[in-house]
């Protein structure tokens, strides 16, 4: 269902949700449930793909916190891989004449937010709870493959990870996948980053499409993990 569609023939059904651009009284109307938007365009394309999950109900942060269902203990001076999930938000983007406009973002997941750190210096994050090695679910949750390295000389317990989603590269095909690296620097500090591993088709990044400048995409977790 994800992909690029011609404006004239854009009509989709994802799970029980119908969306598309329909002709009404000589106008083109984008419709998803009760949401309606008039589209004034002769030609162009519509891109439907999963995007960075920080847009609903409105964008207030650029951080995603994933809490594990059970803590994970990492050996000193070691590397490992885990598979988590992340919430899927689907964007409908109008594309044409070398520019993009986000028409709509929707999700089959109820959004929730949390605070990482203290109220003065911390950050508000999109909250998501995931099992370690959890399976993805179509249109609901994607797979996040995380490479963890512990460069400290201590055993560390990890219960949550925080990522800056402005550098998130999401790929879709058989499933929705993103990749990240986590470097544990000490018992209290870790550095997280989304990385690019080409697999399947790449989603259009919303924060690149919106021309929001990205200043670094690494996040330093300094209030524990």
């Amino acid at each position, binding site marked *: 269902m994800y992909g690029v569609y011609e404006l004239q023939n854009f009509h989709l059904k994802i799970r029980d949700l119908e969306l598309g651009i329909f002709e009404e009284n000589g106008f083109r109307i984008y419709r998803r449930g009760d949401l309606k938007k008039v589209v004034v365009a002769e030609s162009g394309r519509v891109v439907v793909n999963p995007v960075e999950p920080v847009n*609903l109900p409105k964008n207030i942060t650029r951080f995603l916190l994933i809490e594990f269902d059970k803590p994970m203990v990492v050996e000193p001076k070691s590397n490992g891989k885990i598979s988590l999930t992340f919430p899927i938000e689907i964007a409908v983007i109008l594309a044409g004449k070398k520019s993009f406009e986000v028409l709509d973002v929707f999700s089959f997941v109820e959004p929730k*937010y*949390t*605070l*990482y750190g203290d109220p003065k210096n*911390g950050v*508000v994050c999109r*909250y998501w709870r995931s099992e370690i090695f959890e399976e993805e679910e179509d249109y609901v949750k994607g797979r996040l493959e995380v490479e963890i390295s512990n460069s400290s000389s201590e055993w560390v317990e990890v219960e949550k990870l925080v990522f800056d989603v402005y550098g998130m590269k999401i790929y879709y095909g058989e499933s929705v996948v993103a990749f990240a690296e986590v470097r544990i620097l000490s018992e209290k500090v870790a550095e997280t980053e989304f990385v690019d591993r080409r697999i399947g088709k790449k989603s259009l990044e919303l924060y690149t499409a919106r021309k*929001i400048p990205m200043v670094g995409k690494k996040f330093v977790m300094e209030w524990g993990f």
Partner: protein
Amino acid sequence: MDLLDLRVYGDVTVADVLIVVAVILFAVILAKVVTLNLRRALADKIKRDQLELLTKIVYWSIVVIALISVAPILGLNLSGLLVAGGVAGIVIGFASQSVVSNLVSGLFLMIEKPVRLGDQVEIEGISGFIEDIRIMSTIVRTYDGLYVRIPNERVFTSNIVNYTGNVARRFEYRIGIKYNDDVDKAMEIIREVVEKHPFVLKHPKPDVFVEDLGDNAVILSVRMWAPATEWFGVRMELLRDIKKKLEENGIEIPFPQRVVWFANELELKK
């Protein structure tokens, strides 16, 4: 004699004055064009308060450079001004104490940054949004849309409450239920409504507890955290949702009531 060669004072002619006026006008126009383009180029790249500060610095730098460069044409010797400036500074300082005080306070406000543009604040009992932090005064737009100018000296020496200074803030409801109602059920309903709202933060965890056994009701306290930018909207939505959900489940919010005992049995008048 040509009009342009007419002496205004000393060696300064009308032509010199016209050149100075033209240069200053050009500098002002140039400063406006540069700041306008800066705004266009950086509007979505840096924060609004930083952009305002940057454009003010650029604007006044261009104007001051132009003034300094044309000063010799008017016969103003800047080195002489520096010497005179010491004495003049003391005189002007005494004469314009409040102006200087506001100016210095403005500079300190810009360095310390207790408030930023767009913050929701309360300064000396005035609540609203910070619209502008100028060199002499701070402009607040109150919640009912009024323009309030507060001199920077007063802003600097007052207690400032910045509602959006931290990323998250806590707020609280006190909800009374009838003594006959099931307290545990009521708390569970409230907890469900609160946790369902996206902007009620997961951590710090919301609290629901019995705070008081009041005269007319059991008082439940509901405390929760929300992003500082969203808390007021959340506060308005949730109270309505809690009331509706409690009513749907047969839990009433009681009116004040008093049980009256009569010492003697009441007799109806015949």
